[in-house]
Structures are given as structure tokens and as C-alpha cells.
């Protein structure tokens, strides 16, 4: 994936560029909003990671300008904690996701990858399948090895989100956001308990577990670790 990082703080920028490069992405970096507009003309870019506060032209204006030019490349906004109330403004300005500094790098990578998947799989799926697990999104039915599993609506949503992101780590904050539509980082084990319920129903009695815990980050659904 080609990612453009727009960040004025050079230490932060270096850290992000190195991390994303190690994660296998092709990363470019510019330091302000004007350079971002120039770089945005390159339509081989798959993703922008934009700091909200930039010298010259601020991040939100730059994003608005990019969107106004008809560019639909996904944008992840980074913001210092002091601006967290502007999350809504950020998303309104055309951002697709919002991450508050300081963040765990794994959270950034997980969100970038989730955004990318959302962007590429815009076609409407009526079913999803991972290993022996199959869910029918229309009939709201779940099968594993042909055996139907009965899930509560919220458990179904959790599973759907995990399956859409199969093979990729999703964080607890991402799950809370996607399934409950509230935005904050739960510091308690509420999400874990929901996952463990889901696990009980999906994995119990099967040789191969599908839901795996990634310590300190979140969860991943996949046929193998």
C-alpha cells in the first residue's frame, strides 16, 4: 500500500514512516498541508495519514481541499489530545478515521489496514467465510462446519466485524466503535468478556480456534495464528 504521511514533527514522522515501512508499506512523507496538496495529485496513493496541526495550511483545510478536488483516497487524521473534541469536525472535513496522540503503534497499523479494506471492498457482501466459519449477512445465520450457531444480535455484529477484518488485528476501541458506536478506549475488560462469550460459541468444541487474542493490542480472527 502507498501511504503519504503528512506530519510536521520530524521525530514523530520518522517513527511513523519507519513503523509503516516495516509493516510492508511504501511510505512517503511531507511536512505541511501545501506539500500534501501537491503530492495528492499522484493517484497511485492508497492512504493519507495527516496530522491535524500543520504549519502553513492546517490538516483539516488540506483534507477539505483534497476532497473538494474529488480525491476519495482514505484519510486517517492524527491529533494531539487537546483537539480530541474536534473529532467530529475532523470526520466532517473528510477524514475517514481519527486517532489521538499518543497512540500505540499497533493501533495505528490496525486502523490503517481496516481503512484500506473498507476502501477496497466497497462491494456489498451477502456472506463471509473464514476457514470453516460461514455467516449469511442477509439471513443473519452463522455456520461452522455446517453446524448452525445461535448468536445474539450484538455477538453477530462483533463476529461480522472480525470476519470483515479477518487476518488483521482489531483493537478494543475499534470494536466498541464499530459495534456499539461509542468512541473511546475502554480501559476495562468489558469487550474481552463479550469476545470470550463469542469464543465460547464459535470455537468451543472445534479443534482449530478462530478468534485469537493479540496481547496488549486486541483480537484477530483467522484460520491460523
Amino acid at each position, binding site marked *: 500500500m502507498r501511504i503519504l504521511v503528512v506530519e510536521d514533527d520530524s521525530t514523530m514522522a520518522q517513527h511513523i514512516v519507519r513503523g509503516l515501512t516495516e509493516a510492508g508499506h511504501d511510505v512517503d512523507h511531507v511536512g505541511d498541508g501545501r506539500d500534501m496538496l501537491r503530492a495528492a495529485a499522484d493517484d497511485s496513493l492508497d492512504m493519507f495519514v495527516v496530522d491535524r496541526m500543520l504549519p502553513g495550511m492546517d490538516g483539516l483545510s488540506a483534507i477539505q481541499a483534497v476532497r473538494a478536488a474529488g480525491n476519495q483516497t482514505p484519510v486517517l487524521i492524527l491529533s494531539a*489530545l*487537546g483537539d*480530541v*473534541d*474536534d*473529532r*467530529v*469536525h475532523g470526520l466532517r472535513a473528510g477524514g475517514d478515521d481519527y486517532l*489521538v496522540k*499518543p497512540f*500505540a503503534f499497533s493501533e495505528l497499523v490496525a486502523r490503517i489496514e481496516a481503512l484500506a479494506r473498507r476502501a477496497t471492498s466497497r462491494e456489498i457482501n451477502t456472506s463471509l467465510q473464514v476457514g470453516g466459519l460461514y455467516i449469511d449477512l442477509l439471513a443473519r445465520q452463522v455456520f461452522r462446519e455446517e453446524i448452525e450457531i445461535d448468536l445474539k444480535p*450484538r455477538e453477530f455484529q462483533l463476529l461480522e466485524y472480525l470476519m470483515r477484518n479477518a487476518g488483521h488485528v482489531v483493537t478494543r476501541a475499534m470494536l466498541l466503535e464499530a459495534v*456499539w458506536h*461509542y*468512541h*473511546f*478506549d*475502554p*480501559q*476495562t*475488560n*468489558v469487550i474481552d*468478556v*463479550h469476545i*470470550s*462469550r463469542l469464543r465460547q460459541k464459535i470455537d468451543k468444541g472445534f479443534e482449530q480456534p478462530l478468534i485469537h487474542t493479540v*496481547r*496488549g493490542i486486541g483480537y484477530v480472527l483467522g484460520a491460523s495464528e
Partner: protein
Amino acid sequence: MYWVRQNNVWRSTTFHLGLLFMVLFSASFLVLGGFIYRQTLVFMEQEVQALIQLELNRSRQFYLERGEESFLGEIDEQAEIDPAGIYIILDDACQGLFGGYQRLDEDESIQDICTSASDTDGWVQFELQIPRGFRAEIPEWDDNVYARIIPIAPNRQLLYGRMGGIIDSMRQVIGEAMAWGVAAMAVLAVMGSYLMAVSIAGRLEQINRISQDIRHGDLSRRMPQGHGRDEFDRLAGNLNRMLDQIQSLMEGVRTVSDAIAHDLRTPLARLRTRLERLREAQPGELEEDVEQSIAEADSMLATFNALLHIAQLEAGSRRSDFGKVDMRALLVDIAELYEPVASDGNVDLRLGLNVAVHVNGDRNLLFQAICNLVDNAVKYTPRGGRVQLELHRRAQVSRLVVADTGPGIPAEERSRVFERFYRLDAHRESEGNGLGLSLVAAVAKLHDSKVELQDNQPGLRVIWDLPRSRNRS
């Protein structure tokens, strides 16, 4: 009583204002006095002129009826009765013929006076020689004479004049009165301004001195406040309230920094020990310690984030995400989110909602704050206990109740649990950072509301009244 150094008084604003008032008042006094003075003199001159005219008319009548001979007798007689009057008979060439023209001052000439009278309708003023002692005898005696010359017969003119002694006396009296008045006023103004300055500067000086003490670090000092309700008492009262607030804020800062130092030292020390062990470790053993170190760092990061978040909420500027929030939907979501945790702990989580209530607020923050309350309730309620989540609609507010059957919070600690890092001794070993309720308090404050803790007998009962949304729900 605090006394002020002398030079401070002369330089004080109050003193300057007092003097300024004195100058303004004197000026208006002089304007008024001058006006009265002028009007009085004009009036008295008119009086004298009327008297002169009256006497001239009478005299002419007398002259024409009785002849010059008896008129001269008459004026001699009159001079006896009224020494302030003077008669002179002149011919058409302005030669003095009879009467008191010899009494004119050396500088005066009756001919010049008479000649000049033609321009002024006969009115003249001149000076007399005053015999020694006369002045004291008759107050009207004066060397200044107001007079008029009129023709009374062929080749005969009559001058009748009156001494203006009373006018001059009046002039002098009023002048002196005004001079004394201004002088007395100046003295009183200086004294009054001085006393006023001493009393006001004294009170201000007290405030200045105490401010200085406070600036030098004695934050416990307070402004002296009288029982009166004058502006100085109000000023002192306001300053004292401000100082109270500063003091409590500073204590808050100190408590927080102490708590940060204390609470973060332990995980940092653990982290350091692990890193030290890693230096010695064999490649195969690394994983576990690295994982734990990262988790430790993450948890410290989370604590800092929570602190910053609370500080930012307390700054109270974060209202851009406010909107109409359906409290019932919010509580249903929370109950559903916590149901698995509660049933794992064998706690009965019940939802008591029979009304729809909307409040004006930040949906995410309210959710997070109520989650913290429910989280605590579920966490501290023993197995077999119950957590009740209720929503009531009151006239102005939406009342949220989170009641549990846990150990509760002793009454004397209820106000302190909202402080950052404050943890009940009983819970010191359990997980959590001691910031959950601080966040709740900050969110409540942002929503112009307050969270109250009560005894649920047994357990804790949290009551949170949120102002209802204005538009009808």
C-alpha cells in the same frame, strides 16, 4: 489601625481628588460670588442714582418757586441734615457759583467735570477731600461722589451728588468675605483630603501589604473584611474568595502531582526491573518480559491519557460535540455492554427505565462516564449482589441512579473519591487507576451537573441529575 507613611498620603489619588474638588468648588464659589457682587453693586448704584434724581427734581421745583436766594438757604440747611449730599450751582460756562465746589479734591476741577457731563446725560463721578475724622463718623462719607448736573434756569445748572461710601463699603465687605471664604475652603479641603486619603489609603495599604505577603508565599493570609457592606468590604470579600479558589486549586495540583509521583513510581520501578532482567536474559526467555514491559508502559500511557483527558474536560471548553442525547437508549446500550461482565460475576444487573428522557450533552462522554459508574458498581458488588440502573424524569432534570449492594463508601470519604488517584484502602490492590470517578466528576461538571453519592443500605447509590434538553423530548 494601620497608619500610612506621610509621603504616601500627599501622593495618593484620594488626596489629589480632594484638592481637585477644592479647586473646582472654589472656582464655582468665585463665579457665584462675583455674580452676586456685580448685581449688588449695580442695584446699589441704581438706588443712589434714583435718590439723586429725586433730589434734583425737588430742588429744581424749589428753585423755580422760591428763587435763588431762598434755594441757597435751603441747600445750606440740607447740608447740615445730610452731610453725604453735595449741591453745586454752576453757570452755563461751567463756573462754580455756589455750594460745595471748594470741597473737591485737588486733582479735580469742577469745570472739567461739568464739561464732560454733556456726553453722559449729566451723570458724573468725582472725588472730594474728606476732612479727617469724618469717615468714622458717618459710614456713608467717602471721597467718591456720584452726581448729576441738570439745567434749572437760564445760565444756571444744578449739580447734586451723593457720596458712594455705602457702595464702597459693600464692595470691600463682599471682597473680604470671598477672600476669607476661599482661604477657609482651601484649608478645609487640604485637611479633608488628607484625612480621607489617610483613611482610604490606609485600607488599601492593608490590602497591598497582605497581597505582598501572599506573593511571598503565605497563601493562608486573607484580607480584613469589616461587617459593613461598603465597596472595600466587597472588594476584600471578592479577593478572599479568589484566594480560597487559588489555594484549593494549588492544593489540587499538589495532590495530583504527589499522586502521580506515587502511583507511577511503582509501575516504573517494575518496568526498570524487567528491563534489567532482559539485559541478562537468554534469547528464548525474552518474550514474556518484553510483553509485560509493553503492557506496563501501555498502562502508564493510558493513565496519562486519562489524566490529560480529565484536565481537558475540566477546562470546560469541550462542548462542540454536544447534542441531544437519548438517555434511555444510552442506558440500554450500557446495560447490554455490561451484561456479560455482570453475569460472569454473578451480579444481577437490572435496568429500570419507564420514561424517555433527552439531555443536552456529549453522547460519548456520557456513555464513558456512566460506564465508569456501572463498571465500579459491578466490580465491587460481591457475587449474588445486585446492580440497579434507573432513569427518572423530573421537572428540570433527568435523574440517573446507579445503585449497588456492594460495600459502599464510608460517608467521610464520599467527597474525596472524586479526587484524582484517590482510592479506598480496601480497593488499593485491585486493578484500576483511581481516575474513573474523577472523569465522572469532570464530565458532570461539563454538563452543569453534579454527582451525588448516598448510602444504599447496603451499598452505594450514585445519583446524577442531568439538566434535560430544552426542546421537548
